[in-house]
């Protein structure tokens, strides 16, 4: 896998496909040579990104779709998750770990995502929000502890 190869997945805005999306992410992380732990991390991060795209972005509108692009190069997996929603400002989302917010039953998705991959980028489109996740294999890139 010298060149970059792109696998694209497009799905309707239904939470029914989450397990399939997560599984696909894990399988591609496996193809990219990631170890078991990194695979599960990628799977959960993509799951959380897809939940947000389906729920907050497309508001469960089945006519709107979510597009997930997996780009594989040696040692790095780049995943872009894009919805057709109004977008949001990530820095304005509340910190779920403050004493008041700890009692809330939601608001932890982005925290999980940030902890599971090496880099997270946000890009606003018109319309649509794009979340870009970058996961490197520890052996090839920086070590996990340094990155997070």
């Amino acid at each position, binding site marked *: 896998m010298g060149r970059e190869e792109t696998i694209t997945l497009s799905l309707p805005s239904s939470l029914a496909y989450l397990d399939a999306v997560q599984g696909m992410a894990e399988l591609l992380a496996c193809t990219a040579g990631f170890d078991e732990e990194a695979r599960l991390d990628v799977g959960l991060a993509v*799951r959380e990104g897809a939940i947000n795209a389906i729920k907050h972005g497309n508001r469960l509108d089945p006519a709107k779709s979510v597009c997930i692009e997996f780009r594989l190069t040696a040692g790095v997996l780049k995943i872009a998750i894009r919805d057709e929603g109004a977008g949001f400002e990530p820095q304005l989302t509340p910190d779920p770990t403050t004493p008041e917010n*700890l*009692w809330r039953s939601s608001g932890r998705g982005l925290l999980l995502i940030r902890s599971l991959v090496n880099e997270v980028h946000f890009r606003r489109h018109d319309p649509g929000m794009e979340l870009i996740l970058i996961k490197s294999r520890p052996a090839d890139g920086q070590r996990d502890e340094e990155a997070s």
Partner: protein
Amino acid sequence: MSHQVDYRDGIAVTRLTGRITVGNALDDVREVVEEEIAAGRLRVVFDLGGVNFVDSAGLGELVACHRSLDKLGGRLVLAAPRGKVRDLLELTRIGELLSVCATVDEALQRIVED
């Protein structure tokens, strides 16, 4: 997800098994606590030893269960989380809100002491 309730010293110890994720699993978890509340039992232990996966919605549901019990003067204690589940409870600091114990015995002791 599946669950099984055992009573030990009048305290409901519910062993959860499988994945606690967005969807039906969350309703199941919720029902366990609602049944306990309906029966007037406000101290609940969730044995997470058989849970291999949670997502943010699953974590949120655990907090919601704790909130329901707390409002009525009750309490939820989590026992025996493994691997990633334990990591995520720490990352999200949920472990500072409700008690997380390494074993079910410890959880029972903790809940009785308070």
